[in-house]
């Protein structure tokens, strides 16, 4: 266990996971500054080149530097997923709290519609939307948001309904506080821990779905490539076990496993903040 201030402790595994996540976050921000080669430029005459001193992670199916492409890919994978998960959780949690506080018909109608949305398999929804409007960054972000808002809504609503039944909320209501005060000052602070954990889990789902869509050729479009697209365009190297197909996969796995591990090892004080 390692102390991280405020009287909280985190396990070594949790800390290591946080370091991996921070690493990919920094890479996503700094990518254009740290890439050794232009990621779109063909730098090697050989394709599916091995790992050498010049090309640390080998070269791809056209002879482009894999390290540069993976570093730039982090921007798309992390950026799109973060944008989508932030939007989805903001919408879902807000709607969930509003539904729990107001209740009645609004709650019922909203919950029924959102349940129906939930019963469309996520990959299928992505496929249908991309078929209809084509793939672009805004479309991807909005589609992923639409897919993961219902789950976030259900999660937040279930938590908020419990808090809503507590005495301090009743008191606030009797004081005549409005809806916005209630959800911001009374409900939200009491569900923020689990909501953050849910944010992380949903981030993992979105990274996986985005990679899956890109792998099907329906996500980020060339000449740009996220990690899923990098696997897809280099899949021809699979029979030789080329580094170009292995390392993007490793990048995805390292990010998603790290987020999952961090959530499992979050300090109790954060995870259980809803506990009275």
């Amino acid at each position, binding site marked *: 266990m390692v102390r991280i201030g405020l009287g909280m402790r985190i396990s070594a595994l949790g800390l290591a996971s946080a370091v991996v996540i921070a690493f990919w976050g920094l890479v996503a921000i700094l990518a254009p500054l740290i890439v050794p080669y232009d990621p779109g430029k063909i730098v090697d005459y050989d394709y599916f080149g091995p790992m050498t001193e010049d090309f640390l992670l080998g070269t791809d199916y056209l002879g482009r530097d894999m390290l540069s492409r993976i570093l730039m890919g982090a921007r798309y994978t992390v950026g799109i997923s973060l944008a989508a998960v932030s939007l989805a959780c903001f919408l879902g949690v807000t709607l969930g709290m509003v539904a729990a506080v107001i209740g009645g018909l609004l709650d019922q109608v909203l919950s*029924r*519609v959102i*349940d*129906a*949305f939930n*019963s*469309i*398999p*996520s*990959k*299928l929804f992505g*496929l*249908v*939307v*991309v*078929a*209809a*409007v*084509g793939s672009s960054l805004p479309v991807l972000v909005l589609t992923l948001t639409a897919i993961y808002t219902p789950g976030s809504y259900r999660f937040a609503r279930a938590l908020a309904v419990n808090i809503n039944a507590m005495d301090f909320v009743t008191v606030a209501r009797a004081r005549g506080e409005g809806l916005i005060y209630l959800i911001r000052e009374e409900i939200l602070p009491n569900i923020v821990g689990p909501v953050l954990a849910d944010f992380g889990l949903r981030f*993992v789902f979105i990274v*996986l779905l985005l*990679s*899956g869509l890109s*792998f*099907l*050729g*329906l996500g980020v479009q060339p000449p740009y490539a996220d990690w*899923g697209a990098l*696997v897809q365009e280099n*899949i021809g190297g*699979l*029979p030789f*076990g080329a580094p170009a*197909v292995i390392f993007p*996969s490793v990048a*995805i*796995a390292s990010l*998603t*496993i790290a*987020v*999952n*591990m961090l959530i*499992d090892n979050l300090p109790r004080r954060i995870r259980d903040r809803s506990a009275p």
Partner: protein
Amino acid sequence: MNLLIARMILQRMGIVLLTLLIVSFAVFAVTELLPGDVVEILLGQSATPEAVAGLRAAMHLDEPAVIRFVKWLGGLATGDLGISYVNKLGVAELIEGRLFNTLKLGGVTALFAVPLALGLGIMAAMFQGSVFDRVVSAATVTVISVPEFMVATAAVLIFAVYLKWLPALSLAGDVGSIGELLRNFAMPVITLTFVISAQMIRMTRASVIDTLNTPYCEMALLKGASRVRLVLVHALPNALGAIANAVALSLSYLLGGVIIVETIFNYPGVAKLMVDAVATRDLPLIQSCAMIFCFGFLMLIMIADIVAILANPRLRG
């Protein structure tokens, strides 16, 4: 009491029907009302306005969207799925054989995955905290944390590239013997089994452990029951409902997996058909495939709900 159960089950079915209606509306709305004019795609940019108008009338695209939706829904209900834009074949005949292939793949996977997952999940719960439990838990977290296509590529790397036991591609068309059938099925089935077993193992383990924390299990432990007896005799019968629910829910993950797996292994199923249809923007085919998947998904979730209702001892008469 049985009346109560029947009423709850009927209620669930009603909700599923309503959901199916909303879903069909969503599928229709997304594919029909968003930009991208089908007629212009079909005829190309150099088409004359007369030709565009003619084809539009022939395809009933000049009618209001609501009427087209009702017609389309009626067609779905009666089995008339419309005509593919691309090769002018009936969507129903295109899907027929493919659907059987996909069901076969799903069925064979379930046959392997369910016993495997239940066994591992129950054992992990039985020896909770042991090395075995930790290895199983770490493995399932890993499989859940990576995209399905990585499980598939890893399977290809291991079984086809290094061990050379199996062909990397599956060609379900020409099958001579049972051995050949197994070899062709093996890669997709192995991949899908991994993907859905991970979910199922976690859920099974969690529900058995939940039951182990109840007072009657603690009582059995205090009486001196062995760990194995405690799990098999005291906990398991009471966790069965939750486990059956978990199995049905996990099987619904098959749908997502199947889309990736059929594409990678070139397996001639509905999901591959749909991914190809997306590439050619063949909307009638996409709509029908999407409805088939949503229907299957909803059925599995409904079964999970009904099992949960039936397994609730408070509702048994």
